[in-house]
């Protein structure tokens, strides 16, 4: 199990089930998962395909709701919220990072960065300054007016990370964030994650890549929709 700490819990699964009805069968994608994410955690979620990783990611990201059980984000039960309220939670509390970067192609880097704040009605000088600051932070200070297709994969992912940080989320939720990158770029991105941690950024990565998981503090192994094991990578000496 997870080691107890005194850092506050920011996300918590309480016996979460997610069942899909496929014709006659019920697929138990998640079958009673309980876990906690504390502020400052660097957690990886691993498992084979079909283990329930994606389902867990969707629920963690408030893109989907559990069939049963509760999911708390920042102390608030979000498992029964409607679409509108869930959108708000996504927009305020969660920073998504995707495998395929998912920048909006027709927008510039700056405009892409401003998207999350736009939906909270916070576009203006504040968002611009913040975008400039974060672009600087991820090492893309001079690229604000570029389009995504003018950037390399690694650079695009840096923009995506900056975008995920725009709303000061409770945690970053990365879905195979380095899956589309070569090894050296992968290392750059993982190094970038490390540089964010001293600021208290909480990171949850969903991956099937052991090298990526090894960089996190803890790894949660999923199997058949249940938590198979927790691994403390620092204790195992897996981390640098």
């Amino acid at each position, binding site marked *: 199990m997870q080691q107890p700490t005194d850092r506050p819990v920011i996300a918590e699964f309480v016996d979460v089930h997610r069942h899909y009805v496929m014709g006659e069968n019920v697929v138990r994608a998640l079958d009673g998962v309980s876990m906690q994410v504390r502020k400052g955690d660097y957690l990886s979620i691993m498992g084979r395909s079909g283990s329930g990783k994606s389902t867990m990611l*969707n629920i963690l*990201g408030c*893109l*989907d709701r559990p069939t049963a059980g509760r999911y708390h984000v920042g102390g608030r039960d979000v498992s029964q919220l409607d*679409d*509108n309220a869930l*959108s*708000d939670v*996504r*927009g*305020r509390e969660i920073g*998504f990072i*995707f495998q395929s970067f*998912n920048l*909006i*192609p*027709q*927008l510039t880097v700056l405009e892409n960065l401003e*998207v*999350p704040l*736009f*939906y*909270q*009605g916070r*576009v*203006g000088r504040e968002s611009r300054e913040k975008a400039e600051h974060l672009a600087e932070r991820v090492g893309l200070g001079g690229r604000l007016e570029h389009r995504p297709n003018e950037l390399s994969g690694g650079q695009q992912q840096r923009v995506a990370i900056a*975008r995920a940080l725009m*709303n000061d989320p409770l945690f970053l939720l990365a879905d195979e964030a380095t899956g589309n990158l070569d090894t050296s770029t992968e290392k750059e991105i993982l190094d970038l994650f490390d540089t964010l941690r001293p600021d208290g950024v909480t990171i949850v990565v969903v991956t099937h890549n052991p090298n990526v998981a090894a960089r996190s503090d803890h790894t949660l192994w999923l199997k058949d929709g249940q938590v198979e094991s927790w691994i403390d990578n620092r204790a195992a000496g897996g981390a640098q």
Partner: protein
Amino acid sequence: MIADMLRVVRLGLKSLMVHKLRSSLTTAGILFGVASVIAMLAVGEGAGEETLKRFRDMGVTNVLIRSVKPEETQQTSSSSMTSILGYGLFYPEADRIQNLLPQSTVVRVREFQRGVMRGENWRSTVIVGTEVAFLPVTNMKVQEGRWLTELDMQKQANVCVLGASLGKILFPLENPVGQTVMVGIEDRFTVVGVLEYQGRAAGPNGTTLDECAFVPMSSSRRRFGDTIRNPSTNRWEAVELHEIKVKLPSPEEVEPGANVLRTMLQPVHGPKGDIEITVPLELLREQERQRQMFNLVLAIIASISLLVGGIGIMNVMLATVTERTREIGIRRALGAKKRHIVQQFLVEAGVLSALGGLVGVGLGMLVPQAITHFFKQNTIVEPYHVLLAFCISAAVGVVFGIYPAWRAANMDPVEALRHE
């Protein structure tokens, strides 16, 4: 709020710019729709306008009774060389009309084709012999000098008033008032006044009233008599009065008045077919009805092209939504609510059609001018038609954008993000 809206519009433009050709083709659908609405309405408005003006110039409270030459039968034309063909209205009939309709103003008119000469300037025109009331009944005004008076009538004075154009022709440089002109070959008339320019107000024998000269009824009768030789058939015709104008006190009394006149004149002139009763008000109403009908048909045809444009917009927006499923997923993941997505695609559809509408308005205002220029067809662009067409175009975009936008907003974010 406004800044946000501007941002959404700018975003919409950006997205549309990604597919320039597709967007412009879609815009073209609306463009031609709007242009055709404006152009067709302009043609419709213009089409009846000249006729309407002619009827209005006749006076909406007037009833005009004109003498017309009856259709010639074989019998009469064979004996034509010797006999005088008499037809039309008689002098006493004007008095009978006045007795029947005491409230009305009755004006008798005689018309003779004559040459009018002043020095080297000569013009063949119509000499209108008439009465004092002619001026108020026809709604004309004196520009200079005076109009004919009762005294002129009594004295059978050789005085005349010139239409504006005739005045210019005969007296290009000097003031005609007080000068004399030669009418026909032997009669000298003193010009006492010149009328205001009327524009296209139709006059007798294919002239306009601006080209006529006006003399007292009595003088006309004394100088020119009642018989004239028709130059085209080379035979003598006798007409006492060419026209009786009856001005009724109000438009409401025009119809009953006209019926009284028809009943009164029918026994004498009906069988001969030698008069024609014109009621400008009836013609005006009929013309207006026709024009409204015409406009309606044109507007419907034009609206169909807008509808087609709208379907084009819907088609393109559906394609756009499918194509940008991933973008919708991203936006949803980043906190966009359904209404944000709806708003985004509605604005895009609105921008698309409003752009078409804007260019369409421009084209729609040019086309009528071209039609006027090349086909000599009168057109009138009403500002409210332009506004209407533009608003309809914007509305078309929004209405036909609703379904695609709704589809975009109701995608499952998870599915949308997975979309390749």
